[in-house]
């Protein structure tokens, strides 16, 4: 960590020519290392910011597993999976952009940044489609959770594209059958707590006659889903802003082998945003 010291206070005339060197640094190397450490620390704070949400997820999933097994089936696995691929591709193009900047390949840099940006927009577009589905069916958080009409109808509409593998022959006969046993199977959840532990199925059925066998407080899942993906989406938006700024600067020819720190640091940020999604996807979409 202290390698930069040896070079400090050594004459930096060779570097003084670089217009990007700030006055309080002795060398470009010291400046780069400082920025890099700062960026890593910032990413640590990002992980901790999301860490609170992952912690809330763990607590609620542990206390109410039936809510998660039941509600996750309303998420569209194929759209989620598609978005995962989009983000992984964007991470690749971002990494290539950093390499291009280091080697001074300006054209490749611009292309890679533009591709990354396109992936980011595509991700948000797909996310918008997913959110819209939820909104239409009232699959929302807390007090706004109000599934309209018959549960079976809404379920069927969402289930068939979402989890075709689960729609076995039984599902064709009765759509409820694919989702209902899940709620009943978890004895330690809130649905079971309110009644007799030995008779979870009947109890849940009695309590939620209007909603079929939906477990209690399903909205908690959607609350967590929207907060986690929403905060992630805000980070994607911030990334779009920064990458756009990089794109403008790269068109201006600011970056080269002597100065590529902004591309490098943005790349680190973008990989973390990608990484968070890679955890979100299985935790929210792939619960079974």
């Amino acid at each position, binding site marked *: *960590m*202290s390698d*930069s*010291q*040896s070079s*400090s*206070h*050594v004459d930096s005339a060779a570097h003084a020519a670089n217009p990007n060197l*700030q*006055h*309080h*640094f002795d060398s470009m190397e*010291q400046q780069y*290392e*400082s*920025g890099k*450490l*700062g960026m890593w*620390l*910032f990413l*640590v*704070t*990002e992980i*901790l*910011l*999301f*860490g*609170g*949400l992952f*912690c*809330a997820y763990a*607590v*609620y999933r542990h*206390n*109410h597993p039936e809510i998660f097994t039941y509600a996750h089936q309303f998420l569209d696995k194929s759209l989620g999976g598609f978005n995962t691929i989009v983000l992984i591709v964007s991470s690749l193009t971002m990494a290539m952009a950093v390499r291009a900047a280091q080697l001074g390949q300006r054209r490749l840099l611009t292309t890679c940044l533009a591709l990354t940006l396109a992936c980011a927009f595509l991700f948000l577009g797909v996310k918008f489609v997913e959110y819209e589905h939820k909104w239409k069916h009232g699959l929302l*958080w*807390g*007090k*706004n959770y109000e599934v309209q009409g018959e549960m079976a109808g809404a379920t069927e509409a969402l289930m068939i594209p979402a989890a075709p593998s689960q729609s076995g022959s039984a599902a064709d006969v009765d759509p409820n059958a694919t989702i209902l046993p899940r709620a009943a199977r978890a004895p330690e959840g*809130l649905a079971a707590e309110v009644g007799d532990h030995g008779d979870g199925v009947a109890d849940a059925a009695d309590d939620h006659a209007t909603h079929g066998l939906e477990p*209690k*407080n399903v*909205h*908690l899942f959607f*609350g*967590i889903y*929207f*907060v986690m993906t929403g*905060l992630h989406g805000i980070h994607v938006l911030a990334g779009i802003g920064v990458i756009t700024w990089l794109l403008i600067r790269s068109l201006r020819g600011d970056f080269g082998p002597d100065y590529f720190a902004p591309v490098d640091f943005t790349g680190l940020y973008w990989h973390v945003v990608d990484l968070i999604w890679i955890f979100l996807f299985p935790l929210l979409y792939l619960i079974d």
Partner: protein
Amino acid sequence: MSTNDTPMTPAVVPENYLNCSSGFRSWFFTLDHKRIGVMYLASILAMFLIGGIMALMIRTELLTQGQTIMSSDDYNKVFTLHGAVMIFLFIIPGIPAALGNFVLPLMLGAKDVALPRLNLASYHLYVVGALVCVLSIVLGGVDTGWTFYAPYSTTTNTHVSILTLGAFILGFSSVFTGLNFIVTIHRMRPAGMGWFDMPLMLWALYATAIIQVLATPVLGITLLLLIVERVMGIGIFDPALGGDPVLYQHFFWFYSHPAVYIMILPAMGIISEIISVFSRKHIFGYRAIAYSSIAIAAFSFLVWGHHMFTSGQSELMNMIFSALTFSVSIPSAVKMFNWITTMYKGSIRLDTPMIYALCFMFLFGIGGLTGLFLGSLATDVHLHDTYFVVAHFHYVMFGGTVIAFLAGLHYWWPKMFGRMYDEKLGRISAIIITVGFNITFIAQFIMGSRGMPRRYYDYVDEFSLLHFISSMGSYVMAIGFFMVAGYLVKSLVSGPRAHANPWGSAALEWQTQSPPVHFNFDDDPEVCNPYDYSRVQYDAASGGYVRVPSEVKPA
């Protein structure tokens, strides 16, 4: 050495960071860490005034039984805002962002912090956060207590969302300061200054910065969830919707317990500097103090559950958290013993900073030891949510942090503004503040142990005398503070010019003129042991301390 005459300084003030440029923009958009530090200082002192006035309002209301000056609703808001303003706007940024910002690069012999623009952004965020907090006060205040416990905070119709948004923004400000300090200490140390050659203030700031970076984001997400809960009703903390209000407490204290170490650690750094300088003796147990700062930072993350002994968490967790809480006292005591041993056989000079440092050790000792009462499970059930907790907290935060902040302010004041203050008034007011403080809060220890609950608007007859004494003590403290404000302002206008090194410290920040030049040092300073007092000697001609020339240095 006894002479205290006006130093012989030129009539014209040499160019320095204060007079090298002028105008609003040259301050508000400066990248100079010294100006940012001074702006932080002015801001936090303004907030200290607001929080202090609220404290006096609380004590005046409690002067007599029943209504004295305000309604019970107003009382709830005033104690909430007293806590929120003092904690988020004064104590947390107090030492690191104001004094730390000023001295950290100087102590490293550097021109600035590593990321000056981030430093300025941190200040701007502080201003925005402060304005948002003030907005919530103007709109009618908040009545939840500064901890914003759910579910009351999710249901009350006061302006919780705005105040928590302000605290959220202030959190970013704090993170940026901490991040900047870590990077600066890692990357900007001069050649020849290894980790164990740094002044202990830097170790303390480093440990503080670790907590700021690792704990504050969790507060950020907690407050964000609270805001989302109030605005959209996601139900995560709302038991009516199946949410878990105790989860809020866990999240909140995961930050807010480490946060008290954000407040106290830099205070301990200041004391380490001052005790050594004013005893004219090398600090005792350098490594032990340095490591204990890091140990406190590490332990701070493992004890949050001691705020929740009565919240229904399992007995096993209570026992573990209690044991871990006790273990924090070890590194704190290590520091205490080292300071005392540093003074042993030293040549002690009782200037104002040293008076404050001694008061700190007395008050922090009481604050720390009463913490053990609260950390043990059986006594905590009795003392939980009583004035005993209030008194303990104030002994640590006020008797510890604020007193150390005043010590540091008086210690670095000559460096910051190039002027000396009235030493006699300084000593007298330090003693007045300490005496007033003890009157105020010893009474509260007694009340609390007899069962007076905290935050209550009214009380029974048997507490009348103690409440009266406590309120009187707060007025004594207020007198002391107005004296400090008076002579410090006067020193800015007409104080005698300060020598570059008036106290005789061997650390780097005293090797440049007072106040420093824009880029801190005209020449790169010579790095040496910051606690080696054989390297500085009193120079009667200039009225301050100068370095011993290398060739005549005793072998």
